């Protein structure tokens, strides 16, 4: 679709990206320092690291929800702001963030409504997306009638409703129990495979990052920066058995080694700064 017009362009290009909160003040925090990251279309890239390493900040910069101090971000070859205005990406957060006054279908229709799609087209796309996330039986339910895992699936359907080429996810499964979480990971891989979506995924969990990703980007705090990039060549067909293979364990160990020695930041500037900015 929109990516075909820009053949060869990276899905995401991050160059010399820095973000300083409270710049020039005593409590200035270098949330992200001089970061470079290229993500090709179809890749699944996880950002992992302790609190305060700038992984969420980097994701928010890619989403243009905050402006960089220095450096540039290109999404689909466009400036991040233009990409946001064109809705070139979908986003999912730790909290599903569904609107409780809207039915499940209406929630999925939201981005399409904002794009000015007509009612029939919106409805049919929403039903198609809910079928994709296997919630066809719950289209007329309200969010508060669903379990946490189901809510998060609605959020994914909503993020992908407009068929964006890029999906940005900020610890989307962080609030789910372990069993639901593993199930959701498998589902996410299937969905992204079927829709050939590029994903940037922020997580705290090493097995989650390894299971999902083609590349794991390891970050460290003070200042937030990329310390290592681990390629994960487990192939495209990953399922329940993948988690029990030697190759999987080897990669988990490799990421854990990369994270070893990284001290977590005392504060969590990500969360505090977000609250302050808003």
């Amino acid at each position: 679709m929109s990516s075909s017009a820009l053949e060869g362009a990276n899905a995401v290009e991050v160059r010399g990206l820095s973000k300083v909160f409270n710049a020039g003040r005593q409590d200035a925090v270098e949330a992200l320092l001089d970061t470079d990251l290229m993500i090709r279309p179809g890749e699944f890239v996880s950002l992992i690291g302790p609190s305060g390493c700038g992984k969420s900040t980097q994701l928010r910069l890619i989403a243009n929800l905050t402006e960089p101090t220095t450096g540039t971000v290109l999404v689909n070859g466009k400036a991040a702001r233009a990409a946001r205005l064109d809705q070139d990406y979908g986003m999912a957060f730790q909290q599903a963030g569904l609107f409780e006054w809207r039915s499940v279908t209406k929630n999925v229709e939201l981005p399409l409504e904002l794009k000015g799609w007509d009612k029939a087209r919106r409805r049919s796309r929403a039903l198609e997306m809910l079928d994709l996330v296997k919630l066809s039986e719950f289209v007329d339910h309200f969010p508060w009638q669903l379990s946490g895992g189901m809510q998060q699936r609605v959020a994914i359907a909503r993020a992908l409703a407009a068929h964006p080429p890029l999906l940005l996810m900020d610890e989307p499964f962080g609030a789910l129990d372990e069993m639901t979480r593993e199930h959701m990971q498998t589902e996410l891989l299937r969905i992204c495979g079927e829709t050939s979506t590029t994903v940037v995924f922020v997580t705290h969990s090493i097995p989650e990052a390894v299971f999902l990703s083609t590349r794991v980007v390891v970050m460290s705090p003070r200042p937030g920066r990329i310390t290592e990039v681990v390629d994960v060549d487990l192939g495209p067909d990953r399922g329940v058995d993948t988690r029990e293979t030697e190759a999987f364990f080897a990669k988990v160990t490799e990421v854990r080694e990369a994270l070893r020695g990284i001290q977590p930041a005392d504060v969590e500037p990500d969360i505090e700064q977000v609250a302050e900015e808003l």
Partner: protein
Amino acid sequence: MTRVRRVWTFALALLLVAGLWELYKVAGPQDGGTVFGWTILPRANDTAMPHVWEMLSRYGQPENRASDTPILLVVLQGAWFTFRIALAGLALGTAIGLGLAVLMARYKVVERGLLPYLVLSQTVPLIALAPLVVSWGGRLHLGAFEWPRWLSAAVLGAFLAFFPVAVGTLRGLTSTPPASLELMDSYAASWRQTLFKLRFPAALPYMSPALKLAATASVVGVVVAEISTGLAGGIGRLIIEYAREATSDPAKVFTAVFGAAALGLVMFAIVTVVDLVGMRNRPREATE
């Protein structure tokens, strides 16, 4: 189940108040109680506190010797007259309150500049304002439009009603979860889209108690306006007229007072129904 219980509790509470009233009439001092020379306890005699059954039976008797329509009908007519003005006042007050809340939510400067004056406005005594509104209205000439007298009362009702709506809605509009606002940002939604698709629906739980306050405030405003502007036909005027006969016909004024109270309850009930309809799809905890 809970509805039925609520009706029962309400009836029981009424009975309890009636019981306490009669108990005081039996036990209380006939000519009032004085403490350090100050009359504090009300007089329990039949002029100051008529029996409950006298007040109730008064509804069946004519308003005065000249007429033969029971006073119940007169009170109902007065209440209907006031009800329509109060409803107009509530509508006007809600519209103004919503408009101000949106402005204040949109521009922080407006909020900082305007909010203290809104608070101040509520300290102006309504009785002082009533003649002013009447005289401004009388001087207003918009083509063929003549300012009707009842409109002054509606404006005064709106004057009391707009405040809770403005404050409650502002609180609601500014309590939108930051994550939801970010989501709308990620969709590049305009401020207007965010207002109608997110901020307003999210503000509803804050707006319903505000609207309930506004509904009863509007009734108070209109009743006071009727009294202080001398507008005839409404329940406020009846209260003043009947109060003059307090010594000869003590139960009479209470018929009008209860009429005004019932009117407030009806207004409250209307807002409650609107609220239930608006919140029908919300989780149970939020609507309770």
